């Protein structure tokens, strides 16, 4: 499936097209806002089209995860190659992109949400060029994280997102935007420097063979094949790090269930958990969400939060299956705490946006609980929930934005009786809210059910406790609907207009996905089934089997 244009593969196009768009946007003349908007929209629409191509040509029977042979749309090039000296080995870093059933879902989501975010940015007036340039740069960072298969490259993309996000919140945000922006920046950087150290420790702990053409072979393969000219080097290749045979005996992270392996796992975990965000690393999220402009909230909730859980599934679990099993219960516990805590705090909110922010924490808790179950069912629920949460929460934030644009307040108690005033709005909002609380027939139900079913097989008590959340969620969600739509319409809101065409387009397309996947989730589940099966196998048996073999 090597489809390419000008010798550049489809994944590179998807990743770097926004940067090209950014350059174009920056070169456009000042005072042509329409041109800037349309350029950004064109870029993201092409991205969506490419994502549709991926969806069409993606081979559902290939697992990926730890084997490069079954990764799809792979692109590989030599990037950095520093020849070794007697006291320091050769540094060889690959530009390696590829997707499997885990990442394809996230790539689809990213393309979709970026496009929606651009459409919802139509009303932005302040320093338009700067705004869209940063938004497109952010898009590249997000896409890159989901397609990179080399830890160094992954880290680059991961960090590239920080700065645009800081400015997008800090310049175009609400009244406390400076505080929210720096808090987001500091929290995320704290997590990423820990990740950086874990990455370096992994680098020095693993080695592989490289042939003169630049192809990597695992230690086992290299020894078996006996190709001449093989050289032993350290590597940042994520897939090679997943092979326990590649760890240098006696190195920091060699062996299983050692202190340093746990430490590295925890370092990675903190890096990812801050992004999810998992209790107790969540405090940046409500601030960031409340202050961010609507499109940025949409991206933040729709894509950025998923990077945390994606990172765990892509990196932490397959590289440290032993540590993952060791900390599985703790991970599930944090997931459950996030679920319950997020729901309880959401219930107490009177600020519409803050409420949605806390509901996000609660819903991401479900993802973590599903992942921690380690079985295919739970993991499928988790990944599906990542996608669904992306679409549903994007809708929720758009809904908040629509109301805020018109009323310039987010105080829930100030509204009432909007049902007749804004009927289309009420329809969209009802779909989104019922999907968020997990009503059967809408996509949120399927993924939550799968997550909880999977989790119940592994952690019965925790899962039962977590079920409380469903009631709580229904409680606060319905209460919002009641406060906004029912009762009498205050006089000051008599002038509110219903959704315009642009808003309807955004919300309706997301609603269509939510409804379709609620009724017929198979297309999405088929996409990830094979890969997550393989991942579950690695997490459940990885390390242990080799240990037994060695003993």
């Amino acid at each position, binding site marked *: 499936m090597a489809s390419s244009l000008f010798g550049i593969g489809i994944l590179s196009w998807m990743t770097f097209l926004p940067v090209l768009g950014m350059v174009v946007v920056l070169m456009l003349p000042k005072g042509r806002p329409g041109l800037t908007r349309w350029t950004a929209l064109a870029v993201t629409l092409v991205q969506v089209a490419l994502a549709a191509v991926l969806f069409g040509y993606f081979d559902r029977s290939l697992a990926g995860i730890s084997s490069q042979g079954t990764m799809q749309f792979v692109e590989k090039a030599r990037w950095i190659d520093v020849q070794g000296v007697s006291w320091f080995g050769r540094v060889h870093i690959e530009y390696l992109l590829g997707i499997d059933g885990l990442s394809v879902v996230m790539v689809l989501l990213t393309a979709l949400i970026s496009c929606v975010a651009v459409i919802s940015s139509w009303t932005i007036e302040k320093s338009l060029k700067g705004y869209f340039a940063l938004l497109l740069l952010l898009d590249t960072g997000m896409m890159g994280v989901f397609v990179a298969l080399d830890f160094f490259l992954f880290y680059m993309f991961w960090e590239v997102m920080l700065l645009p996000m800081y400015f997008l919140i800090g310049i175009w945000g609400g009244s406390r*935007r400076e505080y929210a922006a720096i808090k987001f*920046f500091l929290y995320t950087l704290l997590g990423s*420097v820990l990740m950086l*150290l874990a990455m370096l420790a992994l680098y020095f702990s693993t080695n592989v063979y490289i042939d003169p053409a630049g192809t990597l072979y695992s230690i086992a393969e290299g020894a078996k094949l006996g190709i001449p000219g093989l050289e032993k080097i350290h590597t940042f290749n994520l897939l090679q790090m997943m092979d326990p045979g590649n760890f240098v005996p006696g190195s920091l992270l060699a062996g299983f269930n050692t202190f340093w392996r746990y430490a590295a796992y925890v370092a990675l975990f903190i890096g990812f958990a801050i992004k999810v965000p998992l209790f107790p690393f969540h405090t940046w999220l409500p601030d960031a969400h409340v202050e961010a402009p609507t499109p940025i909230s949409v991206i933040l909730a729709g894509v950025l939060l998923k990077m945390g859980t994606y990172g765990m599934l892509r990196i932490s679990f397959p590289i440290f299956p032993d540590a993952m099993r060791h900390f599985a219960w703790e991970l599930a516990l944090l997931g459950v705490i996030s679920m319950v805590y997020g729901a309880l705090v959401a219930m107490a909110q009177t600020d519409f946006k803050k409420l949605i922010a806390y509901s996000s924490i609660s819903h991401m808790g479900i993802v973590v609980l599903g992942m921690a179950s380690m079985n295919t069912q739970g993991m499928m629920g988790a990944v599906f929930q990542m996608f669904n949460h992306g679409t549903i929460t994007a809708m929720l934030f758009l809904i908040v934005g629509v109301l805020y644009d018109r009323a310039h307040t987010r105080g829930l108690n100030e509204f009432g009786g909007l049902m007749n005033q804004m009927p289309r709005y009420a329809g969209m909002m009802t779909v989104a809210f019922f999907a968020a609380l997990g009503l059967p027939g809408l996509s949120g139900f399927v993924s939550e059910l799968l997550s909880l079913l999977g989790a119940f097989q592994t952690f019965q008590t925790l899962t039962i406790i977590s079920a409380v959340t469903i009631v709580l969620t229904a409680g606060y969600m319905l209460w919002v609907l009641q406060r906004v739509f029912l009762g009498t319409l205050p006089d000051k809101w008599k002038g509110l207009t219903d959704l315009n065409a642009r808003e309807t387009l955004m919300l309706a397309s997301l609603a269509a996905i939510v409804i379709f996947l609620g009724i017929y989730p198979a297309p999405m589940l088929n996409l990830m089934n094979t890969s997550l099966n393989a991942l579950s196998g690695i997490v459940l048996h990885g390390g242990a089997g080799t240990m037994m073999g060695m003993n």
Partner: protein
Amino acid sequence: MAEQILNDLPRLLPEVTLTATMLLVIIVDLLTKRSAVIPAMIALLGLAASGALAIGQWGVHTTVFSGMLAVDPFAVFFKLLIAGCAVLVVLFSLGSSELNNRERPLGEYFALLMGLTLGMMLMAGANNLLMMYLALELSSISSYILAGYTREAADSSEASLKYVIYGAFSSGLMLYGISILYGLTGSLDLAVINQTLPSVVAGGGTAVYALAIAGILACAGFGYKISAVPFHFWTPDVYEGAPITITAFLSVASKAGGFAMLIRFLKVTFIDPAAVAIPAGAWATLQGFDWHYIIAALAVMTMTVGNVVAIWQTNMKRLLAYSSIAHAGYLLMGVVVMSNEGLAAIMLYFVIYLFMNLGAFYVVMLIANRTGSEDIEDYRGIGPRAPFVTVSLSIFLISLTGLPPTAGFIGKLYLFAAVLNTQGWVWLAVVGALNSVIALYYYARVLKNMYLEKSELTAPLTFSRPQRALVLLLVAPVLLLGIYFAPLAQLAQASVKIFGTP
């Protein structure tokens, strides 16, 4: 003897060229009063010639003048770095209003700058304690005058005086340490000291204590030059008071010279040639004085104090002063691990640091030329008024923080890698990594003032074409080396060859 000296002279050509340039600048300045451009051109040509001659020394691996000076790839690397820094500072000086708006011509300034550069180049090659001391003094005395060059400004004189007092005090301490070492070993030549020390230490008793005291006293001298905590007190005042061009030069070249000297002193003097069974490229120090922990403590203190105190600064120059203290702390991590990998990381970091730190100072200078202020509060809303230079400044600051895709990240990556790859120092890497989070806070404060804050002033700030070109020249490597750093890493690895060590 005389023949020996004549034979060695060609090896000294970069330094000789620089000396000649200094004299030429003085003479030309006497003849053509009131022109800054001609002396500057002569200085640039001299520096270029000196750099070219230094490149010609690549691959040489010897000492000259009976072991006084080493000519090895390590020295050549630092000479080029210092010469490169001097070239940029001369260019900066031509555009500096604080220097050019004065009655006095600039000829003398450029002559002193050459002297300062010469002293630093000698520091890079000094292989004898006496030579080290002389090189240190040559560079210090030139910089005392330069720090107070705008002596009409009160803070400039104060800076200069503080600098002299601290400088005299620490070089006194260092001299005392040197005299103890001489007393113990009977020599000032690093290689000879290295051969004699084991028998001194073997004697045990007071000799070991004397050695420890000598080591700590010598550290005072080096620590002063690289502004490591607790020898850093002069740094913020001098950096704030000195003309900004000199501040920029001191923050990069002076540190580079200090580090070169410290590394050579440690490695050549204290390496244990008998130590075996350590990984390739690492080395062990002689028994008697444990350098590891002393330097690790210095590193931790330096980066933490630098970063934490920087948070409270309101003046851009002071902020960058503390940030440069913090960077000395990061760089010291590369010394702690006592391996070639650590040294290569330091050298790689210095090249990147040259661009990002000089770049930051240059933009601060350009803005100060226009607004007359170095106060961070006066950066409010300046972003839209001067988009090109403020975006550049943002890139420099992000690079100083160490975020990809800028070169600063690659520098930190190599330093952390060197630390993590040495057993037992994981905690140091964690301290370093957390420090870069603290650093983000104060760098981001500048970004916040530039872009997030509003200002009633909206008039655009304009800069001349050469000024923008120079900014671009500094920004380009910061971005390019962040994405493709292989040649730089190769150069750094090839330059870790110190005469007298395996």
